[in-house]
């Protein structure tokens, strides 16, 4: 497909902005519509577009299957780990109020905000990994009939 120059050039032009939009949605879920799930799907769409144009093998060189296998559980672990940290800090599971701290004031959010940020990050990592993995799996199988 990379020999279709129109698609190739337009995809090269747009992929950086699709990926940036995914990050934007990930980090602005607190302010407008969006959040981890949507961001993960948009990120995956950018990679899928790359895979459609330049081939599955090229896409797997960028985001390898091994990396995906790390990403998918890591997201869930970040989510669960946030809850465990809350437990260790003396609160209930996923009770972010105990995440208050006083270092890096103004730069690093704290309390509820920090908890929500970490949790959304976990969701985003898992969802993007899962979506890319499903695309790889479906594409890698040759047509049977």
């Amino acid at each position, binding site marked *: 497909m990379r020999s279709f120059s129109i698609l190739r050039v337009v995809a090269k032009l747009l992929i950086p902005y699709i990926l940036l939009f995914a990050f934007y*949605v990930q980090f602005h*879920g*607190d*302010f*407008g*519509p*969006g*959040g981890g*799930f*949507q961001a993960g*799907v*948009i990120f*995956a*769409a950018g990679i*899928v577009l790359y895979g*459609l144009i330049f081939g599955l093998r090229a896409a797997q060189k960028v985001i390898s299957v091994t990396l995906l296998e790390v990403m*998918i*559980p890591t*997201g*869930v672990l970040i*989510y*669960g780990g946030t*809850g465990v940290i809350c437990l260790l800090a003396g609160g209930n*599971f*996923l009770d*972010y*109020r105990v995440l208050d701290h006083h270092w890096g004031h103004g730069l690093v959010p704290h*309390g*509820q*905000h920090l*908890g*929500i940020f970490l*949790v*959304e990050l*976990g*969701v985003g990592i*898992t*969802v993007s*990994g*899962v*979506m890319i*993995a*499903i*695309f790889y*799996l*479906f*594409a*890698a*199988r040759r*047509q*049977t*009939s």
Partner: protein
Amino acid sequence: MTESTQFIVIPLLGLLAATALTVARMRDLWAAVMLSGIYSFLGACWMMVLDAPDVAFTEAAVGAGISTVLMLATLSHTSRTAKSRPRISWPALIVVIVTGSVLAYGTLDMPHYGDPDAPIHRFPSPTYIEKTEHDVHDMPNVVTVVLASYRGYDTLGETTVIFTAAVAVTLLMRIRRPEVTAS
């Protein structure tokens, strides 16, 4: 949802129903994939008109980016037309009609659309909104707060569901290496 967008809800719902009927009628699966893309576009519009941008955003991200690609990828492993011709099965039709009419009867008892006295508007939404003001000072989007904080357990469960789905699809779809079977 405001008064000004009220008039557009019914036409959009009509279009959704028409699209769904067309998809059900379609025997060409490729065309059905394309029409389900249209359904997703309309769904996002409808959510938008109902003032639910977070849901619309999810619909948009999945519908515009991924679902057509995955559906076509699925289609590349099967045939492009549905094999069986539709037949009317009378018991099934009766069950569907009875269930549908019971559900429709149930809606008669529901509060009117946008009724401020409806249970959903009295509890628990206002408490969430008030508590968001108090608990989380700098997060204007209440939906994110509700999903990630007040209902953190739910969202953890959902993330685990997605994880499980990935594991299941991997187990089903991976390409098996030729194994040496124990004789």
